[in-house]
């Protein structure tokens, strides 16, 4: 039996006149890993803050664990773990104190909070920095501590706003592994990210947001199948000539996209598209055929295309 932990209907967030979230419908089931993708300013964090019950809903309805955040905020927050986009660590406390004192906010006993803090220090690979003042940690270490802190109350649902921004590649992979394990334990994951590989790795289902609206929804695979071709041909021309040469690839493959540094040609057969490019007398400095990825979907849905 599935249980909806998040149900949003026509959810709207306005700041004064400005509409940051413009009537979105979202439903997340227990145990799912759900992603919000979208360009800067799309409204991802605004949505996450409403879900985290720290930002009141302007209109529409939102239910978390079946409860209304307007009346049951504290009960809902008790069951959530939250990693905000910008760290809100307590810079006057040590690493260890940040963890256990946060546990106290959730009414954990002091001994239980300290026990969990110790475990989470291992989890975040910060055991050797337990007594450092947070201000003295590197950016990536702070991020890891934020994530560890969000787990102190053993949340049923974890809200992660760009969790791996600022982490080095190794730390990212470690984190993915940890999140994957949490998911296997039944923790529901809701995250935003600008890394398409992260979304593909972690998310069962995701939505792409743009200007406060949801423009696509599905599993990473479904989105790629629906919005992209099987392969993509990436062409790089001499610097500064992309813009001028791009019109000449018009008609090759199903769709073309001009990026600042390269031209993308979407085609089910990339090699054939490359041959067609050469046949037109174009001499790209480099050409690469690859499988379509979520990034291509993202660009199509939120970026510019040659067609428009």
């Amino acid at each position, binding site marked *: 039996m599935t249980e909806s932990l998040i149900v949003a209907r026509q959810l709207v967030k306005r*700041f004064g006149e400005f509409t940051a979230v413009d009537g979105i419908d979202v439903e997340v089931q227990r145990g799912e890993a759900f992603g919000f993708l979208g360009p800067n300013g799309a409204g991802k964090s605004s949505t996450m*803050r409403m879900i*985290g*019950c*720290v*930002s*009141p809903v302007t209109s529409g309805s939102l239910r978390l664990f079946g409860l209304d*955040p*307007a*009346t049951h*905020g*504290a*009960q809902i*927050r*008790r069951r*959530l773990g*939250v990693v*905000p986009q910008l760290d*809100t*660590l*307590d*810079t*006057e*406390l040590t690493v260890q*104190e940040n963890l256990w*004192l*946060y546990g*106290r*906010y*959730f*009414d954990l006993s002091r001994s239980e909070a300290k026990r969990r803090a110790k475990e989470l220090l291992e989890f975040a690979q910060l055991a050797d920095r337990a007594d450092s003042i947070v201000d003295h940690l590197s950016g990536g270490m702070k991020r890891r501590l934020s994530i560890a802190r969000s787990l102190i*109350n053993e949340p049923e649902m974890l809200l992660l706003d760009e969790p791996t921004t600022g982490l080095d590649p190794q730390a990212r992979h470690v984190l993915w592994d940890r999140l994957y394990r949490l998911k296997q334990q039944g923790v529901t994951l809701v995250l935003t990210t600008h890394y398409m590989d992260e979304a593909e790795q972690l998310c069962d289902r995701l939505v792409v947001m743009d200007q406060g609206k949801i423009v696509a929804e599905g599993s990473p695979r479904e989105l790629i199948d629906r919005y992209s071709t099987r392969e993509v041909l990436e062409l790089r021309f001499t610097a500064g000539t992309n813009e001028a040469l791009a019109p000449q690839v018009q008609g090759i493959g199903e769709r073309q996209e001009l990026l600042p540094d390269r031209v993308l040609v979407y085609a089910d057969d990339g090699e054939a598209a490359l041959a067609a490019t050469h046949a037109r007398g174009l001499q790209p400095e480099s050409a690469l055929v690859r499988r379509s990825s979520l990034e291509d979907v993202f660009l199509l849905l939120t970026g510019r295309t040659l067609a428009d």
Partner: protein
Amino acid sequence: MSGELRILPVAFTARRPQRMIERHIVAYRRQWLIIVSGFFEPLFYLLSMRAGLGNLVGKVSVAGTQVPYDAFVAPALMASSAMNGAIFDSTGNVLHRLKYARIYDAALATPMSPTDVAMGEIGWALLRGQLYSISFLGVMAALGLVQSWWVLMALPACALIGLTFAGIGFAGTTYMRGWADMDIVNTATMPLFLFSATFFPAASYGSWAWVVQLSPLYHGVALVRAANAGVWTASILAHIAVLLLVSIIALSIAARRLDVLLRK
């Protein structure tokens, strides 16, 4: 959410303000010097009054009896230091935690409510204030300025003064845009300190005496003075009522403003 705050008085909706206090105790363990330094300022005042003005002024009438000037001023200094301590804790420190260290943002992502945060900060200010009040009382006793055992009632009186001014300070801080606005705090507390029947009996203000009554500190000074003299009149109830009323209003404003500021 405003739904959690609708019931008045707002202070009674606090569930876990002690968590905020616990956080401060841990944080200040490494900064105990800051705490200790708070003992000295009022003591220096007291000693200078005794050495200087006390000799010039002679005796002053309190509740019908003549007392030396330093015994007249000491309770007022005790009340003022309760005010200053509470203001200090609830303005600069709160501004830092609110706008720069952003400690409250993290707390509000947990079951903690804005009321918990506001009440916790005010509770912390009270706790610290009581430490100073107790030590002040000790010094008063050592200098022979205590007139009655009732003086112990000066401690709850100072707690009430602390509550009032911590509330006012916190509420005011939520309207500050940045450090520049901190100057207003000094500008506002200085006249309170000077014109709350602190250094002269209210009667010496003549036909302007009623203005003095507008100062919450005046009511606090009256309470501490009554405690030291051990003379209680019905007007004490009025002083208590004024301070309680101001506290409740200030605390409600503080919690609401915190909600507006942090839950955008």
